[in-house]
């Protein structure tokens, strides 16, 4: 019993009932197509979230100034600057789980170039802040420690700011005015895109911490910063870093045991990991629901194969009489089921890829088709064919040749 011949017989048997084979296959086609499209949607969402995490910087902690309390009224986070540049330095040097710590001053300022102006968020910080956010420049150079030490009047522009002020022109080396002070543009930051909540991350200007302190953000609280950006040494040490920082800051701020923290430690990665996790769960859930249709398709195959075995009882008897062994008959029907499911699988694959493209095109929903998902759904279709084809095939193989020959 050779394989190509068996395959030919299978194709022939299936093409005899084109309508029936087509409808049976439809179950598998829809199943495979749905699995691929659903996994594509799920992975698309996951990829987008991962991209956002990457754009935020990995293993990121943000320490915010605490809440001022006056006469029992608490004024909310940042209402009193409690964090100092020295705090940032201490965190960087004393907390073993911390890789970088950068003090950050923040304010809304107007940036002017020629007859153009643009109001944007300006950060005064150290070069570490850009390392933490993994944010290189596309043109010019980044901030350096020398800029900070010398309180140089230099700035980095986000892409959005550069576009709005300079248009097609290269901003590097140009002088912009921020709050009437002239700043030399040393570089333009690479594009980060939007955050999950739609905020444009490229609408930003970076200046050295010291310069910002002296010229832009006032001298109300000298040596104080609004927040400190921290990068932990790894994803596993985030929690540890959080604890070490809290401990250190409580000690530095001389807080008694019964006093609340006068700062907040925010773990951004954690929030995003949760989002990523839920995207993953969604992906699995969508895939699982789609697999159910594949399973139903498999039951369709079993149904049709059972009908086929009954219809072809006499043929089975003839084949057995001329010397087909049980296993020859088993293979024949199993291969028929497999041809049904794999042909359906291939068509479903194309349909699934097409559907994902359509979804991402017409709904602007990101989809991601991975080779693994194609392989997975295709082999799942094959598995369904074998699983649901086995019972009818075994039924055929176990027929009594005498009974089968007599069957009308």
């Amino acid at each position: 019993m050779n394989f190509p011949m068996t395959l030919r017989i299978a194709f022939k048997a299936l093409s005899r009932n084109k309508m029936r084979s087509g409808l049976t296959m439809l179950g598998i086609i829809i199943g495979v197509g749905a699995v691929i499209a659903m996994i594509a949607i799920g992975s698309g969402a996951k990829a987008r979230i991962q991209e956002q995490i990457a754009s935020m910087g990995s293993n990121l902690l943000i320490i915010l100034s605490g809440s001022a309390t006056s006469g029992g009224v608490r004024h909310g986070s940042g209402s009193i600057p409690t964090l100092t540049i020295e705090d940032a330095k201490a965190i960087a040097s004393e907390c073993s789980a911390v890789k970088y710590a950068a003090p950050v001053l923040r304010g809304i300022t107007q940036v002017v170039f020629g007859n153009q102006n643009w109001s944007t968020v300006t950060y005064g910080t150290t070069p570490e802040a850009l390392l933490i956010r993994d944010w290189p420049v596309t043109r010019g150079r980044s901030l350096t420690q020398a800029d900070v030490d010398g309180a140089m009047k230099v700035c980095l522009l986000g892409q959005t700011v550069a576009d709005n002020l300079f248009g097609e022109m290269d901003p590097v080396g140009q002088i912009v005015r921020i709050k009437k002070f002239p700043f030399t543009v040393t570089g333009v930051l690479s594009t980060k895109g939007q955050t999950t909540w739609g905020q444009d991350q490229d609408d930003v200007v970076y200046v050295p911490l010291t310069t910002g302190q002296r010229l832009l953000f006032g001298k109300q609280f000298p040596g104080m910063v609004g927040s400190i950006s921290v990068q932990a040494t790894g994803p596993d040490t985030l929690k540890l870093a959080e604890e070490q920082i809290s401990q250190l800051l409580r000690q530095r701020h001389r807080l008694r045991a019964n006093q609340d923290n006068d700062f907040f430690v925010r773990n951004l990665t954690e929030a995003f990991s949760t989002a990523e996790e839920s995207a993953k769960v969604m992906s699995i859930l969508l895939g699982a629901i789609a697999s159910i249709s594949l399973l139903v398709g498999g039951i369709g195959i079993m149904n049709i194969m059972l009908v086929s075995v009954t219809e072809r009882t006499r043929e089975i008897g003839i084949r057995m009489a001329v010397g087909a062994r049980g296993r020859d008959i088993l293979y024949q029907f199993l291969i028929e089921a497999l041809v049904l499911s794999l042909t359906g699988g291939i068509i479903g694959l194309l349909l699934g890829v097409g559907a994902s493209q359509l979804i991402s095109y017409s709904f602007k929903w990101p989809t991601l088709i991975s080779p693994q998902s194609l392989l997975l759904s295709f082999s799942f279709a094959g598995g369904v064919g074998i699983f649901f084809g086995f019972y009818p095939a075994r039924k055929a193989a176990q027929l009594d040749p005498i009974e089968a020959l007599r069957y009308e």
Partner: protein
Amino acid sequence: MSELIRVEHLVKIYYLGEVQVPALKGMGLTIQSGEFIAIMGASGSGKSTFMNIIGCLDRPTQGNYFFESANISGLSRDELARIRNKKIGFVFQSFNLLSRTSALENVELPLFYNGSSSQARRQRAMEALTEVGLNGREHHLPSQLSGGQQQRVAIARALVNRPSLILADEPTGNLDTRTSLEIIDIFQKLNQESRITIILVTHESDIATYASRHVVFRDGKVIQDSPSPPRQAAQDLAQMPTIIEETSP
């Protein structure tokens, strides 16, 4: 002549629920290689059961079955399938061809289960079709062939593995007299020229007269076993009024 088949104390009991139905009650028979035997008997006499066991389609409840001196009563289903494939050809009353499958492919079918190459299959099947006088019809479907032609295809299929035994179960039951004679003629030629043993089940006594030995069954036993000089189908055919050769639709 050597011994081809020997059965001893053959018992076959069918179990229909609680009821035991004995179909063969300890019968024995020896068949020499090259014989042409007609088996007769009323329905329920056990001749079909006997044929099924001889044809390796069924196994006896008790007793021994020697085929070419080997005891095959205890063989597995797969081993029996192998003997059917290599040693035995079947011809049925209702032809039992695969519909929507060409004559050639029907004849190739047994070769398909013993690993012959596709070239060998084709060549051997063409030879067998020529042997039964059907060359030129190999690509016809059974539905495009007359009853006699279909039975010839079935005989070619039985022949294709060069078996030592052909079992024909009422092969002329669905055919008219002349066509029946033509089929019997083919059997006689195969028997006389190729020395193939033929066992023919029939209830038409005039068909049985072309066999050289008559075995009659009744109630699961052989009640008569006698040699008889066979008539020659070829001669009888020559004496029949000639008719226009049948043509396929």
